[in-house]
């Protein structure tokens, strides 16, 4: 009740801020829950949790890929789809756009975000680098799911050199 009132005071921006915070909390809890349930600390168990998170992101991405594109069939080529990912999808989910998109024009794209919202609260710099992959799995799945609804099979991986900047690498699978 109180949050709804606060949202009304701040107007539309306030409510959107509340949505973003809710998503961050939910994501943090998801990662904590999936990690805690796994009693096997070895690499096999960790991979399971990562793939579960990625799968959840994939399903959400599929739904997003259906809902976000507007009325026009605007994607004439792959690069347009990637630009849509960087601008519209990122803005809808993280309230900001992707900072840079690079490609080798042969099916590999690197999307760079200098201050990724899900990492920004953790640390700044090189601390906690080993903990980072589980926080990126959901987002990798999200990108893969959105691409799959729009007709592109891909493989998405993430890498972090220094928090909170991270890179998502999208490799298009051509069968």
């Amino acid at each position, binding site marked *: 009740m109180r949050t709804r009132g606060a949202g009304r005071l701040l107007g539309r921006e306030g409510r959107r801020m509340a949505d973003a915070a809710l998503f961050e909390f939910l994501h943090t809890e998801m990662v904590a829950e999936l990690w805690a349930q796994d009693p096997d600390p070895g690499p096999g168990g960790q991979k399971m949790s990562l793939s579960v998170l990625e799968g959840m992101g994939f*399903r959400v991405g*599929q*739904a997003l*890929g*259906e*809902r976000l*594109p507007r*009325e*026009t*069939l*605007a*994607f*004439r080529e792959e690069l347009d789809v990637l630009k849509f990912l960087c601008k519209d999808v990122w803005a809808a989910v993280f309230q900001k756009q992707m900072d840079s998109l690079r490609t080798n024009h042969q099916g590999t794209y690197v999307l760079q975000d200098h201050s990724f919202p899900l990492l920004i609260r953790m640390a700044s710099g090189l601390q906690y680098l080993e903990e980072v992959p589980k926080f990126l799995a959901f987002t990798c799945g999200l990108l893969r799911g959105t691409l799959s*609804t*729009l*007709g592109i099979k891909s493989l998405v991986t993430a890498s972090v050199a220094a928090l909170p900047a991270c890179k998502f690498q999208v490799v298009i699978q051509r069968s």
Partner: protein
Amino acid sequence: MAVCVAVIAKENYPLYIRSVPTENELKFHYMVHTSLDVVDEKISAMGKALVDQRELYLGLLYPTEDYKVYGYVTNSKVKFVMVVDASNTALRDNEIRSMFRKLHNSYTDVMCNPFYDPGDRIQSSRAFDGMVTSMMIQVC
């Protein structure tokens, strides 16, 4: 008012098909199936033409003597096909467009349902069924 409404997946199998129950339903299924060729032709034609604005609504696919078939394709290559009675000349283009828009919105809602697996038949969505019923001819 439509006589038959179908939702076809990207791989060209039906996700949802419903027709007015009085007629021989196979005839409608067959019409939808043959119209898929026309849809594919229109999609590939759109891809080649360097048009700035590409429409989701494909328009009249082909008219037969009793029925007219309209098509619509989404960004995820899911196709909607609608068969209407040709004698119903009061139906205008923008009415068909609005029917397709409603279909698209309902389909998006079904997709966002976490209990729905993409690629399955749309069977348990009451909202979707209700929306299609409102679009079909009321036959008592």
